[in-house]
């Protein structure tokens, strides 16, 4: 019951937030000098006033500002994100086409970094000050400090160009005609390099956070109580220390999860991954305002959705949240 109310309350707030973001985006885009009509006409090389006026009328840019805003808000209420004249497709279709690729990449990277990061953090904290700890902390520092694009290029050079183990770019083999399992296997092979490159940085962050948090919790009184009960060290570590130590890690993971849609621009570009990040990049270059607004809105919606999920996960692991004595 409490959870249902909490979810409903959050969804209501989320809808309001999203609307505010949409309006803000609209203002931002319109605050920039020029408009799509001028850009298109300019690119066509023939900027005669009649053509610009026609284009403006077609885009609805000849209407008063408040009507444009009202129309835009009305459209997004009905999930109509407009039409991309550049790509010749409705924006919603464009985004839905690209979204799965991005989510496969970012979610894989997310889980790899989270699971490996926590596991390494626990391992390092269990042998603090010893060789294993130094090794793990050192490696994490290296991953943390390496620029993403450099790591990506090196990965392509080594594993794809030199060794030829894995494909270096793309989402799947073009024109292979694979279906079913064969296709999944093909996508998986394409996925490994970009997902690892993207995941390494965050793995380092989770590892450091888990390690620090484990060491801190290990000093707390209830751990001493657990020892006084005669529990085995492995149980104490898993049941008492790790569960409490995960709280800050979950907070951080929630923040990262919010960037799942928009945070892979660099990786997608290097690996020619046909995702949202690249769509945004291309649209920016081409001043395809409808598409940009659409990507902004979907990213914002994702941030909000993952925030809600994080809050729910938090409720599951920490009983103190959401109910009071």
């Amino acid at each position, binding site marked *: 019951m409490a959870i249902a109310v909490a979810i*409903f309350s959050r969804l209501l*707030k989320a809808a309001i937030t999203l609307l505010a973001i949409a309006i803000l985006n609209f203002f931002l885009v319109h605050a920039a000098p020029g408009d799509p009509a001028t850009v298109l006409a300019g690119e066509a090389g023939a900027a005669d006033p009649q053509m610009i006026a026609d284009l403006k009328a077609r885009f609805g840019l000849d209407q008063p500002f408040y009507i444009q805003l009202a129309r835009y808000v009305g459209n997004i209420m009905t999930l109509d994100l407009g039409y991309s004249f550049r790509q010749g497709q409705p924006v919603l279709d464009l985004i839905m086409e690209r979204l799965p690729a991005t989510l496969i990449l970012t979610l894989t990277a997310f889980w790899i970094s989270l699971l490996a990061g926590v596991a390494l953090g626990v391992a390092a904290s269990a042998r603090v000050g010893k060789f294993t700890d130094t090794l793990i902390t050192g490696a994490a520092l290296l991953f943390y400090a390496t620029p993403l694009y450099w790591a990506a290029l090196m990965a392509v050079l080594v594993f794809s160009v030199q060794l030829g183990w894995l494909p270096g770019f793309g989402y799947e083999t073009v024109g292979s005609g694979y279906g079913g399992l064969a296709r999944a296997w093909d996508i998986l092979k394409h996925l490994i390099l970009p997902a690892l490159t993207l995941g390494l940085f965050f793995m380092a962050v989770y590892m450091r956070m888990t390690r620090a948090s484990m060491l801190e919790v290990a000093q707390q009184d*209830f751990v001493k*109580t657990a020892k*006084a009960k*005669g529990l085995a060290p492995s*149980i104490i570590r898993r049941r008492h220390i790790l*569960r*409490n130590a995960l709280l800050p890690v979950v907070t951080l993971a929630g923040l990262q999860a919010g960037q799942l849609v928009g945070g892979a621009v660099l990786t997608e570009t290097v690996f020619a991954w046909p995702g949202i990040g690249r769509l945004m990049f291309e649209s920016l270059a081409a001043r395809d305002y409808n598409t940009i607004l659409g990507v902004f809105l979907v990213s914002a919606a994702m941030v909000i959705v993952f925030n809600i999920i994080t809050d729910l996960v938090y409720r599951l692991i*920490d009983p103190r949240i959401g109910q009071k004595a």
Partner: protein
Amino acid sequence: MSVLKITDLSIALPQGADRGFAVQQCSYEIAAGEILCVVGESGSGKSMTANALMGLLPEGVSVAGGTAYFGGKDILTVSEAEQRALRGDRIAMIFQEPMTALNPLMRIGDQIAEVFEAHKRHRPAERRQKALELIREVQLPDPEKIVRAYPFQLSGGQRQRAMIAMALALEPELLIADEPTTALDVTTQAQILKLILDLRERRGMAVMFITHDFGVVAEIADRVIVMRYGEIVERGSAVEVLENPQHDYTKRLLAAIPSGLVPASTEVAKAPALEIRNLKKTYRIGGGLFRDARVVQAINDVSLTIARGEVLGLVGESGSGKSTLGRAVVRLVTPESGEIIVSGTDMAALGEAELRAVRYKVQMVFQDPYASLNPRHRVMRALTDGPIAKGVAKEKARERARALMETVGLGADAVERYPHEFSGGQRQRIGIARALAMDPELIIADEAVSALDVSIQAQVLDLLRDLRRRFDLSILFITHDLRVAAQLCDRIAVMQKGKLVEIGPVSEVFLNPQHSYTQTLLAAVPGGGWGKAAQ
């Protein structure tokens, strides 16, 4: 027949500690069914022995010599696995801080059942049943609910009961209790002490009870050991040690305890330094879009006055609103309604800017001497920042700071030092000097001596008495410790759940309490009978 026999135990501290050994050459025994109290001030090494027995010594601290025979074996030298098998099974321990000693993310029932799991007793379903029985045995209310509750849903006293339930799970022969009641209110403390006595009676287990409080000793001890700097300075039966102490240190400790003696109230019929009228403060906890907030009346229509030169003791248990009242007077908390009149100014009605101009009139001395001084500022700065902000010339403020340090007994040269160079008691003196530097109309001392050892406590109380006489100070002295209140105050105000239930001269309130809550509080003071006998 002794359950535990410790011989020549020495525990080494890591290099660079203030002394080489936490515990040196200690020998003692505990018999079955006996309660041995190990008494000492902080740093005396009393807890280290317990930790050594449990194999829970902190990093860097190790047993340097001696034996501790328990069940025919020297438990200091057995393997870690054997030690783990003893822990929680035949030797159990409860700790000082019930608020932090339980895992916040686990249900109480699971935490108790875990003891059975650790020692592979019973099937999982039975473990829950056993946990329920234990919860019943330690008299927690509504056991079915407590089993499923999380620690944050329990009060401090209830958590300590849950800890005791855990410790009793496998019927240990020896229970080590490390200051188990220190963090609790007097009435809760009295209940927990009674529970331990009952359990000892029923189960016949030996109890090693570590405490700094002679009142508690008088309440439960069979035999007593007094420790200082890691050595045993006195031992004997409770009666011998309390009534006829041999060692100087014990005598000093006992003398330092505020006695039950009630001083004659001084006549204080002068103009009021503080007048509180119909003060109210309500806290709303939680609440949101769809939930109702829980409303707590922290101060519920309280009116009182403090005369110039008077010390008013404000006593009550945690959550009674006594600290909120103190904080409201300095306006760290803004009350909803009511008046706080300090020398003609209503502090409650002032805006931020006006308030800043008159804030010096009320100064506060805080509970924790370690947290209340900025560690990066020299004492000089701590003592002069306030006066300079108030408009005193810099040179004059510095001169005054030196004089004040002399007054509180630390010497004028100490102003150049940093807080970490002082002990807790000395820091509290600096806190008092800082308050005096502002020439306040009123000083609020919020549990100002509660964090100090008894002998240090006595010195600080002496200082306050002395200052009060010399400077005609008005003090609102907030404390949970009735003995301390009786020593220093002229009148006592008792608060319960935000309400002022009784106020009057110390002798009236102590010897002839009117309100039932005051009577309960007084009855709960540990060692009450012994305190009166000392008169």
